[in-house]
């Protein structure tokens, strides 16, 4: 199924309908931030003459001198029981009750925040997806971490992918929730059956291996892409493919680079060939996204899988549930190994009653708890292989130990270093027209992959759509 189910966007829009009030409708009408974030060299947080005294100890273990509010509100979608545990720890550490506003699905948090903001309700820490950040900055739903103690130390520990995300317009807007990047993996058993010892390193090698696997009857359709139409999935895979191919879909000024002779066009044509000409791609790829694709891979029918979240390795190799656990191996992206990555963050709500105490909760969620450990990040990492925005977490021996069963940790780290944040890969992502363009682009790409139109036609359609929406 390549039509969207209750896609993130649909739910956003549908649920967003209940956001009452001027502010909410203003939020819904506006789109995206106006500025493209550029990677800036790390700068210390500007000194702000506020009455908060310099803490005697580290920021995460020193109580602010201001009075505590009645409670602090944490808005999020749950990841297992992690937030429950962190909130409980925070309450025990500081004696400050945490009101947990947990929406079961990520799509609903966007609408929930808009509704709460419109109603003037208190929100201290918000788990945020990067597409929402621009809009929320514009509408002052969230506030930057100016003048808060300890921000520097966090900044120093952040990796590039994280810094590129949290610093916008010279201000820092949050602490990382998790980091992720696009990777590829293969099913070892098929390699062994075919006598292949090394994963392919180029696109040509990939095709050769696949044709061999197909000929030997080991796998009818060796490649499973995540190519279902929906929220952003198909276009993400396209962005990643073109980036790794050595090209871009949009240039720095967010103009499409899909013209004749462009790398993007070349990559799309190659992609379509895997479906139509060589028939090495499973046709159901056009129906599958995210978890359903992973679980389809569990059947062991396919050899290669490309997906946007490296932490799906923990699902593919899940000890309790995967029938092929331990047999799925990560491989480096082709060519120079470059890939696309991103960070999702926790932000500070502008309706927090006390900025200082909201910062304490934000630290517990995205930084260090009172005991000085990156408690949440370690839980996310050890439990579900979520990457962290902090170098010290990613290199921690406990993380290494936990990830060993899911992937080759060194290879993963190497791949990680080659990840560029998605806003740089696709500057157009921050533009207000991007979502509309993306919806139409997915149809063009899907039609191309299904063999209905050529890559040239698809690219032309996408260029035309850009003209239409961007003006």
């Amino acid at each position: 199924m390549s039509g969207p189910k209750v896609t993130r966007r649909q739910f956003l829009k549908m649920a967003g309908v209940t956001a009452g009030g001027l502010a909410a409708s203003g939020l819904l009408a506006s789109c995206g931030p106006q500025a493209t974030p550029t990677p800036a060299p790390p700068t210390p947080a500007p000194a702000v003459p506020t009455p908060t005294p310099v803490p005697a100890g580290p920021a995460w273990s020193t109580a602010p001198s201001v009075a505590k509010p009645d409670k602090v509100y944490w808005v999020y979608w749950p990841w297992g029981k992690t937030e429950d545990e962190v909130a409980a720890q925070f309450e025990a550490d500081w004696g400050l009750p945490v009101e947990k506003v947990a929406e079961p699905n990520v799509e609903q948090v966007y609408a929930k925040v808009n509704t709460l903001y419109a109603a003037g309700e208190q929100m201290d820490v918000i788990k945020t997806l990067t597409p929402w950040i621009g809009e929320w900055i514009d509408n002052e739903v969230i506030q930057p971490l100016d003048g808060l103690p300890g921000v520097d130390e966090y900044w120093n520990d952040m990796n590039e992918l994280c810094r590129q995300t949290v610093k916008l317009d010279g201000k820092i807007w949050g602490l990382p929730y998790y980091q992720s990047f696009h990777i590829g993996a293969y099913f070892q058993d098929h390699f062994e059956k075919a006598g292949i010892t090394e994963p392919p390193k180029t696109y040509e090698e990939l095709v050769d291996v696949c044709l061999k696997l197909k000929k030997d009857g080991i796998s009818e359709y060796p490649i499973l892409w995540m190519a279902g139409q929906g929220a952003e999935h198909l276009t993400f895979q396209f962005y990643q493919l073109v980036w790794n191919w050595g090209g871009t879909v949009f240039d720095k000024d967010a103009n499409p680079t899909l013209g004749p002779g462009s790398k993007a066009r070349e990559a799309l044509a190659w992609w379509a060939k895997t479906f139509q000409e060589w028939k090495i791609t499973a046709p159901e790829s056009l129906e599958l996204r995210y978890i359903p694709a992973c679980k389809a891979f569990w059947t062991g029918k396919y050899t290669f899988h490309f997906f946007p979240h490296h932490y799906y390795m923990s699902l593919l190799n899940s000890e309790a549930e995967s029938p092929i656990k331990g047999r799925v191996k990560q491989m480096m992206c082709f060519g120079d190994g470059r890939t696309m990555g991103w960070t999702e963050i926790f932000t500070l709500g502008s309706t927090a009653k006390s900025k200082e105490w909201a910062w304490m909760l934000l630290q517990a969620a995205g930084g260090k708890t009172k005991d000085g450990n990156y408690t949440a990040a370690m839980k996310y990492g050890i439990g579900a292989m979520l990457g962290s925005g902090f170098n010290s977490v990613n290199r921690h021996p406990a993380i290494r130990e936990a990830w060993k069963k899911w992937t080759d940790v060194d290879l993963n780290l190497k791949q990680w270093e080659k990840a560029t944040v998605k806003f740089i890969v696709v500057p157009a992502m921050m533009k207000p027209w991007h979502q509309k363009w993306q919806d139409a682009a997915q149809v063009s790409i899907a039609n191309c992959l299904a063999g209905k139109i050529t890559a040239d036609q698809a690219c032309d359609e996408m260029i035309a759509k850009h003209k239409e929406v961007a003006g």
Partner: protein
Amino acid sequence: MERTEAFRPSLWARLRTWVGKGEIRPGLLAFLLVLPAILFLLAIIAYPILYALWLSLHEVTLKGLAKGELPFVGLKNYSIIFRDPVFWRSMLHSAEFVGTTVALEVTLGLSIALIINDARARAFGTLNKALMLLPWAVPPIANGLMWFYIYNPSFGYLNVILYKLGLIDQFMQFAGNPKLALFSVVVAFMWRVTPFSVLLFHAALQGIPEDLYDAAKVDGAGALARFRFITFPLIRSTLAIVLVLRTAFAFMVFDEIFAITAGGPGDRTWVASWYTYQHAFSYLEIGVGAAAAYMMALVIAIITVTYVLVVYRRVEYA
């Protein structure tokens, strides 16, 4: 009807006499009894119908609603719809869906009714009659998701069964296949609603006296002839009712589309209700959505009028 003197006036009568009212006039009583229903119907059906009309003649967005600025745009929303190729495609898909569904439903419904009604396998027939309402009772959204699961292209049961029966040599896509997507929804929908038709046909069949068949058998009529000359004419009115009712019903399909294809792949399974839903609640173009909904209502009205004409005409003949 005049109230005559009673031995023991009822409690109500005594109450009324005490209050000095006497019995309420039938006209007033009827009005009072109907009042709550009328209030509900006014609030939930009449008022929204009129309001939807009003909405369809204005440009309605969430922003506008918040500010209270809803400019009158006349028939602009309707012209937007009529000029939208997706609208016409949706209507076409609806027609495809309704045509296939009703044809299958009526054929299957009648066949099943004949089968379970047949005296030659009474025990089986009784069992099936007892189970018949199961699909009807399944919540439509649950039905959709259940079939979605069965249609899974990598390990779904339909693929497995077809493969084991030797009907396919490779797993297929159903819900994600542009050629099969609509039919996939048809099958799921039809599974759920056929029992209703079976019920109606079964009741109609029960109404045919056995002697007619016996007489025909004596005259040497075979099974097919008996069906053609006895069964079919006598259930014609039921058939007509079923056809019309089910057509209207199939036109309104939503839950199964939502769960199985969500309009996809591409816009292959966009039907009338999905078009309306997308515009009103997804794109938040509430005015356009209201206009589309009105178009839907118009189609249903045409079908309904047909229903009324057919039923009343038939009843007069019967």
